């Protein structure tokens, strides 16, 4: 069930009404049932995996708490990690590894014909797996005690607003909220609806409209030069941001209406002045998760290496980030580009600060933002590109034919000139106003202009310009 569907809106209204009608002690049952129903509406049998992950994480944590010594605790943690990551690994990489093995073996004339399994990647598996791993690690490091109420824990793992694509919530933040009594709160409902409204606008009017424009460029890299590739990449960056942040905002809005606070997952990442800042603004819940559960432990284990420990930890972390995205080699390049940039920034921090002190602030910040943005665009091209070969063509095009404007005119005419101009205008308007609109949404009280002009205009635009062909959110694939 997609957020951008009538089925979901109906589902949410029913759940909300029932939620506030029920006594506090029964609400977790309703939310858990609703969350499982939400998940099963996609593919019912995969609920078994969700339950399995939940059960393993729950019981391993209880056992860890009761373990006699550190060695046994570590053993139980490792079991939990192997099981949870094993499931994730199996669904994401089994067929890829099987195909690779087949190619290699056949190359050496060893007969191996097994075609692999016809399996779909379970929706949200990465997100709920990360959430349970984080929980188990928190229990292991005694950051928190294990949750004893299995139902509440199951709800933490499966809470429907954030189940499929995050934000990845920490147990210390979300679980206590399930014990709090939430009354109907007008302010929260109002703010939740505003978040959902802006999320739907970003998804239906901006992100989904950009799909054919992006596809035209990336699916025909042979035919286009650097200028077109740059435009397509720019549009893809906007599409990805709008799509992903839309999901997070709708999730936050839905949870807020029910009385729950989810963390912010995006903070206008394209105004970042460097990649370090970018990763504090983009997919915040994931980057904090990586920092706390992957980067920091690796760094700590190699702390004797000094600065090289940081280099090592960054490379490993972002290599794994790339691999997590999928089996295409381009995702590995995506990850490594982030690592290289962060390593560069670490080694050049003082030098850059020296330059910053010598330049007018607005100039330094402007140039920094531009360079950071272009770097992000380039690395995102690896995300979207269909193959490594295409990525190489993209790189060549960007550096050899960036100013081929005729080519750009061909691209625009393929998409229909006026429709292209309209979509670009809408996209640029969105980019310019995103920060300001988001500020309005966060306010508890709105001016009449905002309430009676801006929000109705946004809603009217969703109805009029929204793409209702039910395009999935991009990060559903992960």
């Amino acid at each position, binding site marked *: 069930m997609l957020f951008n569907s*009538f089925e979901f809106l109906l589902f949410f209204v029913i759940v909300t009404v029932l939620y506030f009608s029920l006594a506090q002690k029964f609400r977790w049952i309703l939310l858990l049932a609703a969350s499982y129903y939400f998940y099963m509406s996609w593919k019912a049998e995969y609920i078994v995996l969700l339950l399995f992950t939940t059960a393993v994480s729950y019981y391993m944590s209880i056992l860890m708490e009761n373990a006699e010594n550190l060695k046994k605790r570590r053993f139980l943690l490792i079991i939990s990690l192997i099981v949870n990551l094993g499931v994730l690994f199996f669904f994401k990489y089994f067929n890829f590894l099987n195909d690779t093995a087949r190619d290699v073996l056949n190359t050496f004339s060893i007969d191996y014909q097994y075609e692999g399994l016809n399996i779909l990647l379970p929706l949200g598996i990465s997100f709920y797996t990360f959430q349970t791993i984080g929980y188990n690690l928190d229990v292991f490091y005694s950051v928190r005690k294990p949750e004893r109420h299995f139902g509440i824990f199951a709800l933490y793992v499966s809470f429907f607003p954030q189940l499929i694509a995050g934000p990845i919530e920490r147990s210390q933040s979300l679980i206590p909220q399930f014990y709090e009594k939430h009354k109907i709160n*007008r302010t929260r409902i109002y703010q939740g609806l505003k978040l959902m409204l802006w999320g739907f606008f970003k998804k239906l009017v901006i992100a989904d409209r950009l799909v054919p424009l992006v596809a035209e460029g990336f699916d025909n890299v042979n035919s286009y030069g650097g200028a077109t590739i740059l435009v397509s990449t720019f549009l893809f960056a906007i599409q990805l941001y709008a799509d992903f942040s839309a999901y997070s905002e709708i999730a936050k809005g839905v949870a807020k209406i029910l009385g729950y606070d989810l963390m912010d997952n995006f903070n206008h990442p394209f105004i970042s002045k460097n990649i370090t800042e970018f990763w504090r603004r983009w997919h915040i819940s994931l980057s904090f998760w990586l920092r706390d559960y992957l980067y920091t432990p690796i760094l700590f284990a190699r702390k004797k290496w000094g600065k090289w420990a940081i280099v090592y930890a960054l490379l490993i972390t972002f290599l794994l980030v790339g691999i997590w995205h999928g089996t295409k080699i381009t995702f590995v390049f995506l990850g490594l580009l982030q690592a290289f940039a962060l390593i560069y920034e670490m080694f050049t921090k003082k030098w850059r600060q020296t330059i910053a002190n010598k330049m007018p602030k607005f100039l330094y910040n402007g140039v920094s933002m531009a360079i950071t943005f272009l770097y992000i665009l380039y690395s995102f091209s690896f995300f979207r590109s269909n193959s490594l070969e295409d990525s190489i063509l993209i790189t060549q095009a960007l550096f050899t034919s960036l100013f081929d404007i005729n080519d750009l005119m061909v691209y625009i005419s393929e998409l*229909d000139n*006026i*429709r292209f101009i*309209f979509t670009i205008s809408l996209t640029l308007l969105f980019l310019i106003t995103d920060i300001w609109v988001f500020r309005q949404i966060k306010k508890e009280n709105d001016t009449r202009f905002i*309430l*009676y*002009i801006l*929000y*109705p*205009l946004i*809603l*009217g*635009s*969703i*109805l*009029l*310009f*929204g*793409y*209702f*062909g039910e395009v999935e959110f991009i990060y559903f694939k992960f």
Partner: protein
Amino acid sequence: MKIIGNITLFCFSTVFLYLILIFSLSNINYKGRPLIYITNNYYVVKGGDTYFKFAEFDSQAEYDYIFLGTSRAYRGYDPRIFANHGYNTFNLGTGGQSIDNTYLIIKNLINGNNTECLIIDLYPNAFYARPAESSLDLIANVSSHELAMDILLNEKDPRHVNAFFSRLSILDQAPFYNDSDYVEKGFCTSNETLRPYWLEKLNSGELEDDTSTLSLEKLEILHEIIEYCDEQSIRLLFTIAPTSDFYPDKQHAYFLQQLKLIENRNTPLLDYSKKLKLSTHKMFYDGSHMNYSGVKLFNEKLIEDLKSGI
């Protein structure tokens, strides 16, 4: 009270701004077409064969046969050929016409006074779940506002709301294009033989293998059509017009299996799918549609069968 006031004003503002936007985009033209067609790629332009056939259709006249169905209907049944045999007919087939839209057209325009017999051409894609193409086309182009409204209410999709209000915004504007294939009385045709793209596919053996599942909910509508015709004392026939080599036997077998749900309703189903053995090269211009040579052969055969008392 304040909250109710705010909500009311918010809703009013939304509707007002929405209507202003729709009206403006529908009435500002660029290169001969309203901007709304340009800013939204799901719009069906006012005009074409659907517009002209519904404008031409006279619900007060008396027809011996009315044809309904998908594009295979409006390109498969020529009223002129039926006229040569003394029948007054009209073709209300439209592109991708879903069976629920067929039913709505029947309820709005067809009755026992104006129609002797309904012939509904059946094809799998009339029974798929989401027929946005058909509904948008009809909302934009049928002459009856009531029919357009019924189609809108049958869909749960904001695009159709937009299409309806846009329709109202350009009532006084002439249709924006003509369909060069349109002949008369709802019929369209082409004299081409198989187009190069399809010829290449045929020669390379790349036949379509459509494994889409038919919607049970839509199949059930056939019962409602049968009941309506019974009430109105309209004779009803289902037909399957000739198909090309691109239409797999396996898909046809599956389709016939699904149609068994109306087996006990005593409504004849005339299956000409492979009966006439029409040459795909010579009698079709693409994978689904007969050219005029094919239509002539098919219609003569159909008339012969109708006269023999089916």
